[in-house]
């Protein structure tokens, strides 16, 4: 299932709708990178509220996305990780190091707005 990428001002928002296959994740990565360049976005929010399982591939891809987008000069926030998922991830050692996280979409937007302000 394709992940829709929405543009909201300077921010791109990708919301996972359901569990994704590895190919979908690859597509998401490609899509996000292209669109960050195209729209000259300054921030990306990946919303994973709907995911109740996160495997190592998904979590690695998320980290890669964040780091690649940083190289493009934009900031990534992962939002909406479920408590159970969060603890399972940590136990498996997938801690998304160096990636910003926030409680939900609203928090993520607030975080990015704050970040943009401090840069400007």
């Amino acid at each position, binding site marked *: 299932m394709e992940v829709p990428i929405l543009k909201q001002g300077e921010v791109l928002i990708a919301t996972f709708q359901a569990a994704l296959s590895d190919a979908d994740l690859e597509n998401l990565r490609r899509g996000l990178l292209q669109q960050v360049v195209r729209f000259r976005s300054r921030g990306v929010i990946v919303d994973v509220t709907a995911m109740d399982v996160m495997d190592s591939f998904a979590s690695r891809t998320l980290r890669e996305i964040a780091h690649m987008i940083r190289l493009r000069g934009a900031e990534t926030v992962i939002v909406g990780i479920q*408590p159970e998922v969060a603890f399972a991830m940590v136990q498996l050692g997938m*801690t998304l190091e160096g990636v910003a996280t926030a*409680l939900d979409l609203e928090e993520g937007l607030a975080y990015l707005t704050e970040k943009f302000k401090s840069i400007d």
Partner: protein
Amino acid sequence: MVKRDGSTKDSGMGNIRNAELAVSEDPSELLRELVAHLRQNRTQLREEWVGRISETRLLTAMTKDEIFKEATSVYDSYVEALETETFEALQAYARNLSERIIPRGVETHEVVGIVLLLRDVLARSLFAKYQTDFKKLNRILDAYEPAANRIANTVAVGFVQERERVIRQQQEAIRELSTPVLQVRERLLILPIIGVIDPQRARQLTEQLLRGIRTNRAKVVVIDITGVAAMDVTVANHLVQTVEASRLLGATVIVTGLSPEIAQTLVTIGVDLGKMNTVGDLQGGIEQAERLLGYKVMAVAEPR
């Protein structure tokens, strides 16, 4: 065969009567006789039993009078159980007794010990009574031993069950008051941890905290471990994992109240606390949390 058949018939009335007597003396008959004997000698046997109890230093948590009182009721229930061969009343009594004496620190071995002592005292009185008639003694013991063993069993099991019930109840209580997740300010939670953390409690703690972060939309969490006396590798790693999981939910964790001992242990065992945000005490933790949240607390007037 034929010859022996004849001989039994011929051997006269005496033998036949003896056989009949043996048949009529079925176990319940013997038990009745036994019970009558125990009732008759109640005072003396009880005295002897209590004497043996204090001799062997059992039930040191109880006074002499109490021991005597309990001994009397145990003795009576014991005899009653022998008489009726029903153990429900005894079971109920054992449970009731355990309920009363467990809080006073009476141990399992003491309870089993006194019941076994009673068994021995009674058995000896039987030896004394029937020492001239060995066969009868044998039959009496045949009737007495299974019943007595069952009684000992019932009491011991009753005691252990009561103990287990108490333990379960206490565990439940500890679990319930275990880990409050409290909101002290908008978006600021504190989690005071007190007592020993075992893996199960640690897991429950993490679950509650993560859920609390979500429902209260917390941004900063202060975990106060002033009340934790010791910490091992497992618990320390769990704490680190909790901190990381909280971060995945977008919350910053501040750990406060690490005692010098715990700090030393953690450094010695080499737990990676680099990612952990630690502040000396709870007050400092809350102040730092307020800074992170952008609060500025100041006095608007002199304290009254």
